Each structure stands twice: as structure tokens, then as C-alpha cells.
């Protein structure tokens, strides 16, 4: 965002394009803070969300890199992956727990990241509402579907 002093010379944001006939757009604060805003929110949700991002991130480094290593590098690489390979791994509760943990942590981590992106970039309350609604729906759907598959996986399916 901020630029080096010596390099930041000259018009900012394409300022040279503007003159009296073609003026720059007026920047106005979207919603000014007043005595009544923001509404105070008791509770520690934002703190837990912030902590969750850090902790899940650390765990995901191990889970995801391990997952990629097993799937793509070891034992002949990507060509070995098939129905039989997945069925073989999910026969063990260890890999079931690994994949379940990875699914939940990655989905919640990503969803929370997108939630903060929406909070930071969507300016209108309505836009935020719809984007977050879409995000939460997609997250819940993916997590539930993935969990269902892991627990009800049948290697003998036809």
C-alpha cells in the first residue's frame, strides 16, 4: 500500500489523467462513524475467530502438506490415485480423522477468511448480507456433504 519515498513521485492513482475538464472523482467516506455507531457487540466472537485462524493455520500446514505429499509425491505420485486408493486409506480410522479434520479446518478457515474479506470490501449492508449468506450456505453444504461421505463411505458400492 504505502510506497517508497523516492519512487512515489508523480501523480497518484493516474492523477495525470485529470484536469479541469476531466476532474477526479470526489472521495467521500461511505459511512461516517457517529456517537451511535458502531453498535457495541458484547462477546468474544471476533477474538475467537482471530485465534481460530492462527491455530487452524498451523494445524493445516501439517495436514495439507502431509496430504499433498501422500497424494502426489510418494508411491508413484498422482497416477496411483483411484477409487481403490481412497477406499484403502479410508479403511483406517486414522485417515478418516485426518481427512475429516482437514475438511472442517480448511472450510472454516477459508470461510472465515472470506468473511473478513467481505467485511473489508463490501461497503453496503445489503451486499454484505447477501455475500455472507451465500458464503455460509456454501460452507455448511460442503462441510456436511464431505462429513457424510467420510462416515458413510462404502468400498463395495456398485
Amino acid at each position, binding site marked *: *500500500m*504505502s*510506497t517508497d*519515498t*523516492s519512487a*512515489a*513521485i*508523480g*501523480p*497518484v*492513482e493516474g*492523477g495525470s489523467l*485529470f*484536469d*479541469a475538464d476531466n*476532474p*477526479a*472523482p*470526489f*472521495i*467521500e*467516506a*461511505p*459511512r*461516517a*462513524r*457517529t*456517537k451511535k*455507531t*458502531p453498535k*457495541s*457487540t458484547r462477546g*468474544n*466472537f*471476533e*477474538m475467537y*475467530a*482471530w*485465534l481460530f485462524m492462527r491455530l487452524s493455520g498451523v494445524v493445516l500446514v501439517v495436514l495439507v502438506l502431509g496430504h499433498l505429499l501422500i497424494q502426489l509425491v510418494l508411491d508413484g505420485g498422482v497416477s496411483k490415485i483411484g477409487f481403490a486408493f481412497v477406499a484403502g486409506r479410508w479403511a483406517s480410522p486414522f485417515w478418516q480423522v485426518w481427512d475429516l479434520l482437514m475438511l472442517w479446518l480448511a472450510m472454516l478457515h477459508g470461510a472465515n477468511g472470506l468473511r*473478513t474479506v467481505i*467485511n*473489508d*470490501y463490501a*461497503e453496503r449492508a445489503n451486499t454484505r448480507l447477501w455475500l455472507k449468506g451465500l458464503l455460509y450456505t456454501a460452507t455448511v453444504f460442503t462441510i456436511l456433504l464431505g462429513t457424510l461421505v467420510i462416515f458413510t463411505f462404502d468400498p463395495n458400492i456398485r
Partner: protein
Amino acid sequence: MATPTMDKAEAAGTPEPGFADTPYITATFRIRRFNPEVSDQSEWEDFEVLIDPKERVLDALHKIKWELDGTLTFRRSCAHGVCGSDAMRINGKNRLACKTLIKDLNPDKPITIEAIKGLTVLKDLVVDMDPFFQAYRDVMPFLITKGNEPTRERLQSAEDRERFDDTTKCILCAACTSSCPVFWNDGQYFGPAAIVNAHRFIFDSRDEGGEQRLEILNDKDGVWRCRTTFNCTDACPRGIEVTKAIQEVKRALITRRF
């Protein structure tokens, strides 16, 4: 920048043609003008000023206002980097006009000057600071104590004073808050300046309102919206480690909750 004196030029007997023997240069100042009485749009206006590059941007603004265009509007009070009135966006970076030397800005190219971002522009370089000061008021930037007032001075050890020394330097110029991309979005985030001033009391051993302030900053628009982009630390004209202060408030929140 060579600055030959008059004596030397005379002694040499051959003064260079042009301005070679004067320290003055012609610098272009590209200022973002906004006048709500004329247009709802702002526009860039160039001013050419003959000025010593060892002077400050504020001196150039004075020269423009006093000699070229009296309608140019900007805030300044002490003009020496203490009052915090003249924070503006100079060459795309928030600085104090009274602490920025022209020679440090490469005066060969136009020097752009505009109002700080994220606050409503009232005229030219003057913005509405009310939202900024509202966030400041919300963190209760004053000493809170319980019980009777002591009859003597509230003493404090040098180590306890050192704990929050960095954040006492704030001059409330809004350079940090108006450089924060999270604040730009909707202006509801408390902003670096309010958190810095909360930090100054939260970590003061004499103060007993730390828990209240932490609760306020635990809010949806409190410290957790900080994305550690370090824009505030880069912008601070007093060299306060703003992002570090925000992180210390986060850490205090976590350690006091668990």
C-alpha cells in the same frame, strides 16, 4: 544541492547564467482542489512555485496561498510538527506538510498534495475530523481510577513509564487512521490512532480502566479488524510503532481472557 554563497559568486567574477547561483528551484505542486460551492467534483490544479528545496511543503502551501491563490484551504497551527493539524497525502503517502522537506520529494516531478483519505473532504485539504475524534472519545483516553484521590502525586517507576512511552507521542494528526485500508471501507473501525491512545492508558500502571477499554476494543470493529498492513506505522510522523501497539492490545485481550 550546491548552494554557492553570494560572496563566492562575486569572488569568482563569473556568475553562472540563469539560476545556478541561487538555491531556488521551480517546483510544481499538483493539489487536489475541492470546493463544494462550485462543483461536487474535485480536480487537480498545478501551481509552479520558485522555492528553496530545503524548505518544507508547508512553506510552499503558504507561498501558494499568500502569493498565488488565496482560496487554497488547508489546516495548520503550530507549523512545527507538534499540533498535528496539517496531515495530508503528499506524493501518495500520509505525512505532515510541516515536516516534509521539498528536497526529499524529488522536486523534478510534480509533487501531488491531497486531503487524507477515508474522511469526508470539506474543502481542498480540509477534512471532517469528527468521526476520527469520535473513535478517540470512544476508547476513553483519560485516567480512570477507583477510590479517593491521593493527596500526593501518583508515583510511577521508570520501568512502568517506559511500558507505554511510545504511545504517549501521538499528536492525533490522523495520518495513521486515514492510511488504514480497513478504515477506508466504512469508517466504523476504531482506527490505529484510537487504539494507540487506548494502549497508552491500558498499559499505564496508574490506570484502572484497562479492562473497560479492552472490552471496547474487543468489539466487532475493534482491534480484531486490524490486518497488520503496517500502513499506520509507515505513516506515523512521530515514528510510533503503531502496528506493534495494536498487536500488544490483541495479546492483552487474549492473555486476560484465558
